[in-house]
């Protein structure tokens, strides 16, 4: 299987993803699943401009991603699926294309209605509803910002107090 990890991170492609996880996993490509970005050429150029030469970036909408992920998973190339929010990842998981694939909660930052659960994870009511739906899928969900950090399983995460 060559989808090594799926990550929810509102910063999308950034240092922790490219350098932290990219080097750790030996990535060939990062697939950003985002309806808005998949339609915006200039923003895609912006991300391509910052990536190392040996990592490719692909930008696809949710519907197309649901068809492509099983193909990527069967391919030898090593990939990483990235979404900026929980709803997008949950949508993919509910379609069954992320069964037995690990979903990494890597960065949801402070915003109105959200409260701090971990330094890199702020959750609001809607986020918790999304996590509850994700829990009912066959994806394995945990929080971990960088490879060297402790992995916090979803069950444990949901018991942590918000600040």
């Amino acid at each position, binding site marked *: 299987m060559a989808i090594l990890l799926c990550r929810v991170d*509102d*910063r*999308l*492609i*950034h*240092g922790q993803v*490219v*350098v932290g996880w990219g080097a750790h996993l030996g990535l060939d490509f990062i697939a950003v699943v985002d309806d808005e970005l998949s339609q915006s050429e*200039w*923003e895609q150029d*912006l*991300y391509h*401009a*910052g*990536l*190392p030469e040996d990592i490719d970036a692909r930008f696809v909408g949710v519907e197309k991603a649901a068809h492509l992920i099983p193909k990527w998973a069967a391919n030898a190339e090593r990939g990483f699926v990235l979404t900026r929010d929980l709803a997008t990842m949950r949508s993919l998981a509910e379609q069954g294309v992320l069964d037995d694939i690990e979903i990494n909660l890597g960065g949801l*930052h*402070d*915003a109105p209605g959200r409260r701090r659960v971990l*330094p890199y994870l702020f959750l609001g009511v809607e986020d918790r509803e999304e996590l509850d739906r994700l829990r009912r899928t066959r994806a394995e969900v945990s929080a971990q910002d960088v490879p060297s950090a402790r992995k916090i399983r979803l069950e444990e995460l949901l018991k942590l107090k918000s600040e």
Partner: protein
Amino acid sequence: MSNNEVQGILVGHGKLAEGMLNAIEEITGSREGLYPVDNQGLTPEALEKRLSELTGEGPSVVFVDLPSGSCAFAARRLQHRRSRMALVCGVNLPLLLDFMFHRTLPLEEVIERLRSHVGISIEQPTDGDSAVPGR
């Protein structure tokens, strides 16, 4: 502060920006024209807004550490609507010092100087000929 002076914004991971400006201040006695921003805990939108406030409409150079970091992507996004803003990835102290001493020049000349001052020096003794006296 003159409107024509180029503003420098230094954005980095962790406490890099403040740390580098601290070093600049120790060397030159000033940090005028350079503003630190750290990306900790900021959403991409909040980071871009902070950069937008600091760069203003005048000429500016945004210095970032990693080309693939959130700081660089926020700066590129802002650059899309700011024609008088340059982005420098891979910041180091020699670059910042050169900028500090020449930021009264027109933006294009400041950029040209930065291009020619990569600021990286790698020194390695050749076989049997140590560059370090006494080794």
